C-alpha cells in the first residue's frame, strides 16, 4: 500500500469521525441518545472485527469480554467506590486479561471447535453473573450511584448525566477505536493477522508463531470489547446480566458481517444499520429478533462480504 492511499484512507476515517461529530447538531433527542448507544456498540463490533475480520477466527462468545468490561467497571464503582477513570482503565485491563486467558485454552482448538468453545465460555460468564447475584443482582442488575456520574479530569468537571458530554465521550472512544484498529491493521502485526486468516499453515511454515499471533489478536479484540462494555456501564449507569447473553455475541457478529468483515469501518456501518433496522422492526412485533435471523441468512447466502467488502471489491481497492 502506497503512502498516497494510506493518506486517502486516513482522511476517509477522520471524515467519518467528523461526520459523526456534526451529526449531533441535527439529531432530535431520541436519536441523539440512540446514536450514543450505537457508537459504543460500534466499538464492540470494531473489537470483534479484529478477531473475525482480520484474523479469521469466528468467536461466538464476545459478549463475555463486553460483560467483563461492563462488570469490572460497574462492580468496582458500585461496591468499592472507585472513581470513574480508574474503573474504566481497570475494566479494559480485566477484559484484555480475560481474553488472553480464554485464548490460552480456546486457541488450542481450531475451526468449529473454537466457535463452540468460545460460545460456552461466554455462557459460563453469563451464568456466573446470575450465580453471584449477591453482588451483581443478576437479571435485575445494578444502577450505579450518583457519585459515579461525574469525575474530574485535569481540573475539568465531567458530568456523565449530561447527554452532550456522553455523546462526546462515546464519539471520542469510537474515534480512538477506529484510529487504533486502522493503525494496527496496516502495521506488521496486522499483516501477520491477515496472513493467518488467509493461510495459517503457510504462515506457520514461514516461521511465524501463529499461536501467539492469534493470541495477540484475541487480546486486542477482547480489550476493545471490554472498553466498550466499561463505557456502556459508566455512561448509562447500569450493569445487568442481559449484556452477557449470547444475543450480544451474535450482534457483534451480525454488525461486522453486514458492514463488511475485514474493513475498519464495516462494523461501524453495520452497527448503525442493524440497530436502526431492529429498532424499526420492534415497533411492529415482539418477535423483532426475526429480523436478526433473516438478515443473517440473507447475508450468508447472497452478500457474504458485506457492504464495505463489496465496495472494496468493486471500486475502493485501497480500503483497509
Amino acid at each position: 500500500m502506497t503512502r498516497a492511499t494510506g493518506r486517502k484512507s486516513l482522511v476517509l476515517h477522520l471524515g467519518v469521525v467528523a461526520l459523526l461529530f456534526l451529526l449531533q447538531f441535527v439529531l432530535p433527542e431520541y436519536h441523539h441518545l440512540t446514536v450514543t448507544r450505537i457508537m459504543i456498540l460500534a466499538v464492540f463490533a470494531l473489537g470483534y472485527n479484529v478477531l473475525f475480520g482480520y484474523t479469521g477466527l469466528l468467536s461466538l462468545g464476545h459478549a463475555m469480554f463486553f460483560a467483563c468490561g461492563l462488570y469490572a467497571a460497574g462492580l468496582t464503582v458500585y461496591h468499592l467506590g472507585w472513581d470513574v477513570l480508574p474503573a474504566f482503565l481497570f475494566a479494559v485491563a480485566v477484559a484484555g486479561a480475560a481474553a488472553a486467558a480464554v485464548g490460552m485454552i480456546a486457541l488450542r482448538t481450531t475451526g468449529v471447535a473454537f466457535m463452540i468453545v468460545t460460545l460456552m465460555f461466554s455462557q459460563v460468564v453469563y451464568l456466573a453473573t446470575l450465580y453471584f447475584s449477591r453482588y451483581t443482582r443478576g437479571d435485575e442488575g445494578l444502577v450505579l450511584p450518583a457519585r459515579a456520574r461525574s469525575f474530574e479530569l485535569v481540573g475539568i468537571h465531567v458530568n456523565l448525566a449530561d447527554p452532550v458530554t456522553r455523546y462526546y465521550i462515546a464519539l471520542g472512544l469510537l474515534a480512538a477505536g477506529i484510529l487504533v484498529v486502522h493503525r494496527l491493521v496496516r502495521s506488521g502485526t496486522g499483516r501477520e493477522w491477515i496472513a493467518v486468516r488467509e493461510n495459517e499453515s503457510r504462515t506457520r511454515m514461514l516461521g511465524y508463531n501463529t499461536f501467539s499471533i492469534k493470541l495477540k489478536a484475541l487480546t486486542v479484540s477482547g480489550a476493545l470489547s471490554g472498553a466498550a462494555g466499561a463505557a456502556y456501564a459508566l455512561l448509562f449507569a447500569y450493569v445487568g446480566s442481559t449484556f452477557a447473553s449470547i444475543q450480544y455475541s451474535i450482534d457483534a457478529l451480525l454488525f461486522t458481517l453486514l458492514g463488511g468483515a475485514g474493513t475498519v469501518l464495516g462494523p461501524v456501518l453495520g452497527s448503525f444499520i442493524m440497530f436502526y433496522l431492529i429498532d424499526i422492526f420492534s415497533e411492529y412485533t415482539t418477535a423483532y429478533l426475526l429480523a436478526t435471523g433473516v438478515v443473517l441468512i440473507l447475508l450468508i447466502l447472497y452478500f457474504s462480504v458485506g457492504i464495505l467488502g463489496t465496495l472494496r471489491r468493486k471500486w475502493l481497492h485501497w480500503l483497509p
Partner: protein
Amino acid sequence: MDLGPFLLLASLEGLVQAAVLSLAALGLCLVFGVLRVVNVAHGEFYMLGAVIAWWISYALFSHPLSGFVAALIVAPVLVGGVALASERLVLRRIGHNPEATIVATIGMLYVIQQGVLILFGPDARSIEPPFYFRIDFPWFGYSGYKLSVILMALGLLSVLWYVISRTRLGLVMRATQLDREMAQAFGIPVDRVYGTVFAVGAMLAAVAAVLIAPIRQVHYLMGLDPLLMSFIVVIIGGLGSIRGTLFAALLIGMSDGIISMFFSPTLAKMVSTLLVALVLIFRPEGLFGRREP
C-alpha cells in the same frame, strides 16, 4: 432424607437427563460427523418437537397416552421435514462451508424461535404425562414416567445403533463420513445423504423433546439449554465420535443431575462447561476423538 437415598434420587434425575441428552447430542454428533458442520439451530429443532407435541396432545387427542404416541411419530417427521427443507434451501447453497453454516444456522435459530413466538406465544405450557404410575422406593416415590423415559431412550439408541451398523443407510452414511469423494466415486448420492443425515439429526432432537416435554414445560426459549448441553457433550466426547458422545452424555447428564440436586442448577452448568476447558487442555481432540494429522 439421608445422604444415601438422596444420592439415589439425584442419580435417577441424572439418568433421565443423560438419556434425553444422549439422544439430542447424538443428533448433533451425526450431523457433525457426516457433514462436518455444526448445527446451531439444533436446539430449535428440539424446541419445535416439544411445541408440536404440545399441539398434538391438546388439539387432536383427548387422552394423554394416544396424544403422546401420536406426537412421538408426528413431531419427528414434521421436524425432519423442516430440517430437510432448510438443508436444501440454505446449507446446500453455501456448500456446507463450516463457518458459513454456523452463521446460517444461527439465522435459522432466530427464524424458528421467533416464528414459534409469533404462532405459539410467549407462555410456558405443560403437557400431561401419558400415564401416571408411581414406583415406591422405601424412602421416596418416583415417577414411573421418568423411568420409562430412560427405557425408551435406550430402545431408540439401540434402533439407531442397528441402523448405523447393520443397514444399507448406515453403511452409506459411514462411507460418506469416512471419505466423501471416494463415496461419491462409488456412486453414493452424497447430497442426498447429507440431507437425510441433517434431517435424522433434527429428528433425534425432536424425539428427545417429545420424551422430556411431559416432565419439563414447553416454551419458545427452551432450545438454548439442550443446545449448549449437547455442545458440551459432543466436545468432551470428541467431535463426531458416537461412542464418545454416549459416554460424555452419561457423564454430563449424571453430574448435572447430581450437582443440580445438591447445589444449584446454575452451578451444575458452570461445572460442566469448565469440564470442557479441562478436557481441551489435556486432550484437545476430546476423550474419544482422533487427533487430526
